[in-house]
Every structure is written in C-alpha cells, then in structure tokens.
C-alpha cells in the first residue's frame, strides 16, 4: 500500500463546550516525511493526534490517513497507524516480550508473523537483552523504545509520536531519533510533537499551532523566511560575550534593538537594518570577530510568531 499522501486534514476542528481546542486545521504529510508539530502546552497538539488516531471524534472537518477517511474507515485507519502517547502507556507489570505479544495479538498478527515481527523489532530497538524484564523496571529511554516497538508491530505507514522524548536523557533522545530516521527512510510518515527545538530542526517539515490555530506550516527554510519572523527593515546578529546577562541588560537602552535573547554565551539580536557589526562590537565592548550576521533559528521563528499572536501590533 503506497499512498501519495500519508496524512491529510481539511478544516479539522475540535470544540469542547465553549472552547475550540483545534481550529480549522489543514495539513498534509507525505510518506517518509517527518512532520514536526510544535506549539506551547495546551495549544491542541495532543488533541490533534488523538483525533487522527480515532481516540477523539472531530467536531468538524475531515481527515484521511493513507487516503482512508478517518470517519468511515476507522478499522483500516487503525491498521495503518502506530501511536506512541505522551506518557508510557504499555503494561508495567508485563515483561517486554509480553507487551509485544499482546499488541501483536491486538493487531491480529498470525502467530508466525507475530514471532517474526517481535524478533525484528527487538533487534531494531535493541530490546533483546530486556525481553524477559518487566516493563516498569526499564529506564525512560528504554520504555520509549518499547513503546515505539509496540507501535510498529503491524508495520504502520504512519506513526504518531506525542512528545516521545519528553523526560529522557540526551543519549536516549539521539538513539530514538536514529530509529525515527530509519523509519522515515523506509517510507513511514512520522508525525511528531516536541518542545525541543533541536528536534524540530531535524524534521522535514514543521507546523506550529498556537491556541488551536495553525499559524505556521512548511520547511525550516520557508518558516525562517516568513515576513513576521524577521520584519522588514530588521536584521539578525549574534554577539558573543563573556557576560551574556550583563550584555542583555545593556541592550535595553539601545533604541535600535528590537529583540534580544540569550543562547549560551551568545546573544541573538534583532536590530534595525542600518546597524553595522562594528557598531555592535563598539556598543557592547566585544571583539569585532564576535559579532556575526545570522539567520533566524526555529526558536526565533516560534518566539516571533507567538509574540505576534499574543501582542498583535
């Protein structure tokens, strides 16, 4: 089964009583794409995933997974998707193997097929040494691998991952992403929510949802080129400094500074485009080589978009 579009939503909306949690969402994700779905807490990310996985009924709009309408083809949709929820949702009192066995049965895999898939995924996720171990004794990163393995047993074409790396260490995060890239190479579409900007940078395309509304959607380059991110008449610099906090304070009385954020030992500045690098090195007392023109990062993009929403000009 090879559909041209893995995920497609048109005007997807979820309302609870008075509140619209997801508002008129239209996105499209191709097979093999890693779609990063970002947004502040409570912006509607999980609700969107739950609608697409059939856990929450949409109030309006339509959505299809691999060209299958989620309203009418629920069963076929369930066979095409894998889901990894925000918190560990396998059975802690069951062993790794028993959890996989259960999900293999839940997906109605024939016994020989089940055995084969469990073996393949144990290798893929490197869970083999832990097969007989109770799931609740695994560390966070290994729990996520198990959850991913369980979500992949039936070879889904689309996998939804709701903050899969929340609360796990950087090495485990890197390992999990390696697995996701492998899946992407196999043509599996991945729909990933995250708060980590470095993860967002790894996605093929990124959507940004704020208060239920999709306010940005596209590749990194497209998002960084959005007019609201670097408004006309402004440019971005990074300024390396020995004391970023002090330098940040210094920016307050510089009328040409529109925005300033600390990144490690750097300060990212949004300034009016008449400002030269030499002026910045003079004003902040740093070596000329420490000032550089930069492109916006995804974080800059989201901060700019969120602020524009919160305080419309």
């Amino acid at each position, binding site marked *: 089964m090879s559909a041209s579009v893995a995920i497609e939503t048109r005007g997807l909306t979820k309302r609870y009583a008075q509140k619209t949690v997801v508002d008129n969402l239209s996105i499209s994700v191709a097979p093999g794409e890693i779609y990063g779905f970002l947004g502040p807490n409570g912006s509607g990310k999980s609700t969107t995933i739950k609608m697409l996985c059939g856990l929450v009924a949409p109030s309006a709009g339509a959505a299809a997974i691999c060209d299958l309408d989620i309203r009418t083809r629920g069963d076929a949709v369930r066979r095409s998707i894998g889901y990894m929820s925000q918190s560990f949702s396998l059975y802690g*009192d069951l062993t790794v193997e028993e959890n996989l066995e259960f999900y293999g*049965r*839940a*997906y*109605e895999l024939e016994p020989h097929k089940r055995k084969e898939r469990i073996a393949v995924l144990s290798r893929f996720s490197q869970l083999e040494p832990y097969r007989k171990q*109770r799931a609740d004794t695994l560390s966070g990163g290994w729990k996520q691998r198990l959850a991913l393995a369980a979500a992949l047993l039936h070879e889904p074409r689309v996998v939804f991952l709701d903050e899969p790396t929340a609360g796990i260490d950087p090495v485990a995060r890197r390992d999990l992403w390696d697995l996701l890239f492998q899946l992407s190479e196999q043509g599996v579409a991945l729909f990933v929510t995250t708060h980590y900007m470095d993860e967002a940078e790894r996605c093929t395309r990124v959507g940004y949802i704020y208060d239920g509304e999709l306010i940005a959607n596209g590749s990194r380059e497209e998002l960084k080129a959005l007019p609201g991110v670097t408004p006309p008449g402004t440019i971005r610099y990074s300024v390396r400094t020995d004391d970023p906090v002090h330098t940040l304070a210094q920016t307050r009385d510089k009328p040409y500074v529109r925005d300033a954020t600390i990144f490690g030992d750097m300060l990212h500045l949004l300034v009016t485009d008449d400002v030269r690098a030499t002026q910045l090195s003079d004003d902040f007392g740093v070596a000329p080589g420490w000032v550089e023109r930069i492109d916006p990062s995804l974080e800059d993009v989201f901060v700019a978009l969120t602020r524009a929403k919160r305080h419309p000009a």
Partner: protein
Amino acid sequence: MNRNAFDLRGYSAIIYKELRHLARDRVTLGLAVVLPVVQILIFGYAINTKVEHIASAVLNEDRGIVSRQFLDALRGSQMFDITETVATRGQLLNSIVSGRVRAAFDIPPNLSANVRAGHAADVQALIDGSDSTFAQPAYAASTAIADSLSPPAKAAIVVIPRVLFNPGLRSANFLVPGLIGVIMQLITMFLTSLSIVGERERGTLDQVMVTPIGALGLMLGKITPYAAIGFVDMLLVLAAMRYIFAVPIAGNLVLLIALSIGFLMGALGLGLLVSSIARTQVQAMLGVFALTLPSILLSGFFFERSLMPPLLQWLGYAIPLTYFFEILRGIILRGAGFADLWVPITAMLALGFAVLIGASIRFTRRDDA
C-alpha cells in the same frame, strides 16, 4: 472513528494480557480467592455462634415430682440455664419482655397428677423471637426436653413452644446463603471496575483503543477472567456454607450454580457501569460501595423487606440481589425448584441482562467519543 459495538476481535488478546496481569499480581488474585472465604467465616461465625446456656425463667405451679424431673432435664440440657423462678404468669412474661431471659417455661399446676393418671400434659415454652440467633436453637431444644425424661413422663409431657415478637422465625441459616450473593457482587464489581478504571487512569486504554480491537472483544476480554474468579469464589463460598456451617442444600445444586452465573453477569454489568462513569480508581471504589450498600440494605439481607416502607420495598425490586436472595434461600433452605422460583429468576435475569447491555453501550460509546 467508527467502531462496531458488536465486534469481538481482540478478545483473545485481551484475555492473554489479563491472565498475565493476574499471574503477576498475586496479591490481588490471592485476596480475590481468600477474602470471600474469610468473609463468610467471619460473617458466618458472627451469626452462628454456638448457642448454649440460654437464660431462662420458670413458673412452676405443680411442684410435684414430675415437675422436678422436668426441671432437672432442663438443667441437664446445656441449652437452658434457669436464672429466674417466678410466681405468676405476669412475672414470667415480664422476664422475657425485659430481656433478662430469652426463654421461659410455664409448668401447669396439675402436671404430676396428669402424668400419674396417664393423661397428656402440656408445658408451654415461651421463646424470645426478637433475636433469631437464640430463637431457632431454643425452639428446637425446648421440644426435645421431654425426650430426656424417663417414662411415663416422657410419653405424657409435650412441650409447646411459642415464639414471641417474631412469629415468622428466621433461622440462623437465613443469613449464610444470602452472603453468597453479597460476596459475589462485591468481588466481581470491585475487580472489574478497578481493572478497567485503572487502565484508563494509567493511559493504557488509549493505547489499546488505537488498535483494531473490537469494543465487545475488549469488554468481554476484560470481564471474563473476573467472571471466572467470581465463579470460583461462588463455589468456595458454597462449599464453606455446606461443610463449615453445615447448611444443607435442600434444592438442586445445578440450578443453583446456573442461576449464580446469571447473577454474576448482572454483577459484572454493574462493575462495567461503575467503570464507565468513574475516572479514577478511588471513584470506582466509592461507586461500588454506593451501589452495594443500598443493595445489601434493601434486598432483604439484614432487614425483612415486608416491614419496610413501600418506597423502599419498590426500590428493592430494582436490585438484582433482591431476587438472588429469594433464589438462594428458596433453593438452599426450602428446596424450591424452577417452578417455584420462576418469578424471581425471570426478574433477576432480565435485570442483569438489562444492566449488562446498558453498561456495554455506555462502555463502548464512552471510549469511541
């Protein structure tokens, strides 16, 4: 997303998983099996304390040799202790009304003369029926006293017992069969509702709902293991009743077991109903209590339903346990059969089926939302 409510797929997968949970959770499994037996032992012994040395009053208007023989027999019976000897019938009655004694014997003036003349002679025994614990054994023992006399008194004297305050005397056996229903309802409701709500609480249910498992497969898969535990509990409790408390089963055992399974279905339905409403395990526990306490109080387990206000009697008709008590007592104590009990049997099965269907609809709808 559409999901067919009568889709049985995934049933065996859920069963597989539930059996693993149970095997891993030895404490719950142990409690589920041991608790019912402990409960019936505690309840059973609490109401089945061996009755001896019942405080008794005597009015002896005869004072002849036969009456002395009768009093000796009374003392020798272990069952009655003569704690009061009174002079008038009014005092005799008062000794019971005041609660000082639970039995009283009225020996008429001409007892010895009648026995000597070869006539029949009656001794009246008054028994306090307000406490069925004492009344039943006292009733039985009083009629047997004459048996221990020597002839000719043995043949002539007839003790005529009269139960005061509670003419429709309840036997001590009355509560033990009823316990079967209470225990079965509690255990199955707790196990099903806690198991389902627990999954919802931990978020594991969402992960299951993403798979193609059918609504019916999930539901039956969740309740079948607990139905099996409930069934084993029922057999254990029945065995305890029969062999520890020596309550004989007068009626058909197969009918009794078949109807117990029918009752189990309704109890499981109530458990499902609780789990479709409760969001946390604490709520589920409170829900089980909220449903079970009125069930126990209104079904006639402790209190005679015919003495309740009409409204409460009517409420009792809506409780499956009410009918199950009638069935249990009918079959176990009176040896009643299907023909005698078809009304409560039909009512119980219909009620249980309705609860199960209603709960299933709620259960599948809730998770499809």
